[in-house]
């Protein structure tokens, strides 16, 4: 693909703008100063000297990693007259659906406030501040009264919205023959395109998650993978690391590999920032905190894989809902963060604040985005940043109506198309008894399978999300699971029976399933 000059200029501009606001810029300046101070000869060589110094000290590589990380996420170039809202979401009917949906959940959040006579936010009394500070690492033992709190929305509610999104221009003339629920007309990849995209996962290539399943110590594959993993990590080349990850990570190196691709390094600045977020948790009690508490209690606390991490989840999620970095990401997406007004100033923009501060209203199951990460990171601050990076890069697409290729709408459509293509008989059978496959798979996709698969399998799956920089694998896996349970599904006659067949996924090994679906003829 060749880029037009104009496009190229746009990309370079966007990237340099991003670098300037990143802490990388500061680091560079300091390093450059450092180099310059060592210069002995004349000033004439200064530039060359500093540049070669920066190369040697690994800063050039850091810049390359930064570019690699950001490049796929540069917003498309728009004509200067393009309206702001259009830049966020080019397709009008999708934009409208998202707006209507946001209105609905915002209303339901507000009516919960009224019903329970709870404020959206309040300052914590001094005593509570101190209590909470003292108990920061064991918040699970001292929950607020949650009996009245209910999740604002569940995947089921969201599926209704997603399946209701419809192009008003092609009302009664479906452009293609779709048996599924999704009516939006979006372009999604074909099986052939997916095969090319995921070619590294093909059966003739040894994979973590397949070839290391036997835990015999003599396993040559494992040994080799481990050695190679250490080598690429040491190289600090994010591109090489990402390439390596296409075949999955050995469990013992995953945290370093992910850090390298996500560009995560925890220094004083990160610790300070986290502390500020923590402090804002202590100062203000938000209604969303209760939602998070409730969500953790309903999911992770009762989950025999994740209950041990309960206290970490509070330490990650409560600060998360105050993080303005996330707000910036959300603002750029199709979503429009809700605003709340200081009491008595309704409608007065000067007194408007985003609510919750990060612009995200959690759905039931949200905490499961964090839980699997606890198997790789044993430090709340580290966990925080890894989760935040995952969220900003991937997960926020999963609960926002948009035309984005990674968005839930596209993924749902991709799922239905693939299933229809690969398993027409099964799809037809399910439809004929009134079981829409997406009604079963939607909850898996929206949670990126967390809480459905066993944790090790979730991590192997997320390896591939990160390596291929795409959520499309979620739709492929959902199809793969339907294929795998086909024999049983063909025998059932009701939705309940179908749910029962698909209820327990904890025994599945995802990589072989994906391979079967993608690469068998």
């Amino acid at each position, binding site marked *: 693909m060749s880029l037009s000059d104009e496009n190229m200029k746009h990309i370079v501009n966007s990237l340099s703008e991003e670098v300037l606001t990143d802490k990388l810029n500061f680091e560079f300046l300091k390093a450059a100063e450092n180099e310059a101070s060592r210069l002995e000869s004349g000033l004439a060589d200064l530039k060359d000297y500093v540049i070669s110094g920066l190369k040697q000290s690994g800063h050039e590589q850091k810049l390359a990693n930064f570019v690699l990380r950001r490049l796929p996420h540069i917003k498309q170039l728009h004509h200067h007259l393009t309206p702001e809202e259009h830049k966020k979401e080019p397709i009008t009917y999708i934009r409208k659906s998202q707006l209507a949906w946001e209105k609905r959940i915002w209303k339901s959040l507000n009516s919960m406030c009224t019903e329970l006579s709870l404020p959206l936010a309040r300052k914590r009394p001094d005593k509570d501040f101190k209590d909470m500070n003292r108990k920061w690492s*064991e918040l699970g033992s001292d929950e607020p009264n949650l009996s009245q709190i209910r999740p604002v929305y569940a995947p089921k509610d969201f599926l209704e919205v997603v399946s209701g999104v419809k192009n008003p221009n092609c009302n009664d003339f479906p452009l293609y023959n779709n048996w599924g629920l999704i009516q939006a007309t979006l372009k999604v990849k074909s099986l052939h395109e997916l095969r090319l995209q995921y070619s590294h996962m093909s059966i003739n290539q040894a994979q973590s998650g397949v070839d290391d399943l036997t835990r015999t110590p003599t396993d040559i594959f494992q040994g080799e993978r481990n050695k190679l993993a250490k080598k690429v990590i040491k190289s600090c080349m994010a591109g090489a690391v990402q390439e390596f990850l296409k075949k999955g990570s050995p*469990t*013992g190196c995953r945290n370093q590999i992910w850090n390298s691709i996500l560009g995560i390094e925890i220094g004083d600045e990160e610790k300070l920032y986290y502390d500020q977020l923590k402090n804002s948790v202590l100062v203000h009690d938000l209604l969303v905190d209760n939602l998070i508490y409730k969500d953790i209690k309903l999911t992770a606390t009762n*989950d025999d894989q994740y209950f*041990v*991490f309960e*206290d*970490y989840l509070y330490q990650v999620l409560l600060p998360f809902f105050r993080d303005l970095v996330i707000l910036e990401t959300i603002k750029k997406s199709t979503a429009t963060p809700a605003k709340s007004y200081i009491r008595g100033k309704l409608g007065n923009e000067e007194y408007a604040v985003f609510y919750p501060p990060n612009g995200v209203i959690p759905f039931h199951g949200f905490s499961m985005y964090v839980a699997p990460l606890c198997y790789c990171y044993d430090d709340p601050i580290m966990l925080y940043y890894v989760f935040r990076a995952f969220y900003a890069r991937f997960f926020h697409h999963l609960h926002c109506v948009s035309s984005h290729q990674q968005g839930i709408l596209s993924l749902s459509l991709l799922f239905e198309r693939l299933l229809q293509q690969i398993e027409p008989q099964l799809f037809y059978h399910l439809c004929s008894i009134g079981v829409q496959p997406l009604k079963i798979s939607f909850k898996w996709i929206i949670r990126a399978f967390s809480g459905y698969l066993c*944790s090790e399998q979730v991590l192997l799956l997320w390896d591939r999300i990160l390596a291929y920089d795409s959520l499309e694998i979620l739709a492929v896996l959902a199809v793969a699971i339907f294929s795998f349970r086909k024999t049983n599904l063909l025998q059932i006659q009701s939705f309940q029976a179908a749910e029962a067949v698909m209820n327990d996924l904890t025994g599945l090994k995802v990589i072989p399933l994906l391979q079967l679906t993608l690469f068998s003829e």
Partner: protein
Amino acid sequence: MSTRLKYTTDLDKSVLINNFEKRGWIPVGPDEDWNFYWATVQTVRSIFSVESGYRLSDDQVINHFPNHYELTRKDLMVKNIKRYRRDLEKENSPVSEKDEMGRYIHLDFIPTTYMLPADYNLFVEEFRKNPSSTWIMKPCGKARGIGIFLINKLSQIKKWSRDNKTSSFSAPSAKDTYVISRYIDNPLLIGGKKFDLRMYVLVTSFRPLKCYMYKLGFSRFCTVKYTASTNELDNMFVHLTNVSIQKQGDEYNAVHGGKWSVENLRVFLEGTRGKEVTDKLFDDMHWQIVHSLKAVSGVIANDRHCFEVYGYDVIIDDNLKPWLIEVNASPSLTSTTSSDRIMKYKLISDSINIVIPPGEGPDVRWNKIASRDNYGNYELLYDEELAAQEAVAQDAKGKVGRLSNKKPSTWK
């Protein structure tokens, strides 16, 4: 297909009965002609007592060794392990090697322990070396955390011995003897909480030693955040991982019962600490189990009608060193959760498949090593015969391998 076996059991546990019924075995009374008896330790003791005059025939199998308590009573286990170490040292075995501090490198796997009142003076001497250390007192004859308490001052021990001195002239019976062990005050914490491991080990023979390790063990978590603070020494929800204790707490969760699979633990440790240290931890644990069994193999009556499934309790400290806490002869077969029930059902099923190979009748003259197809979730932990053959083979090659470098897993 062989004839339907006759079984009897003292325990009315569904995980047992369901297994027997699934096999189509026929229930009979303990006085009838049974082939398979899942008995309590008391029953086994009386069957094998001299007075009973009972003789088991070749097609009878029972689930305890006559004097398993050499391993499973807290005081006797310690005594036997201490003797085992001394013996190895006398033989100049490389396994008994010590570090510069005078500690065993490979055999230092139980916390320093004394019997009370017998070793009282020894304990005081040790305590004075480290006057602020914490110790844990456990009654020898009890279980499920009953009667356990922590101390960190000598005065507490003195008070205890005064309070317990009811009849100062009679010798202490097993009932009021205690063991006192150094408290592992730096346990590995996960999510801020203390846990211990329960692993199952099946022994089919002590001489030669043949044992299997069950892959589906679990860790048991405390419900309350751990603190080494001495203010909380009497808060048992912080210190004791027993399910029977934790169940009484407000924070107990009946869905998972505070149990986390060993597989999860492994993924977590590998993911957060790395593969090498995790592998070493599990290897160390396997070795400890083998050593503890070897330590009693000389004193256990190796009756060929017997097999036994032991529950090993292990605590891991924050240096990833495992400590053997105790061995249970009758690990609980009560299920706290549904996955617990499934796991215990499999445990019994897999154990039976090893001691009575499917499709064959019980025959105690077998060589005590099952065919690999019947391992289920077990893996061979140690086979002394096989190890001896390998040692001979290595000698022949002129490379005398040091036992300590060889992991049990190499014999799998």
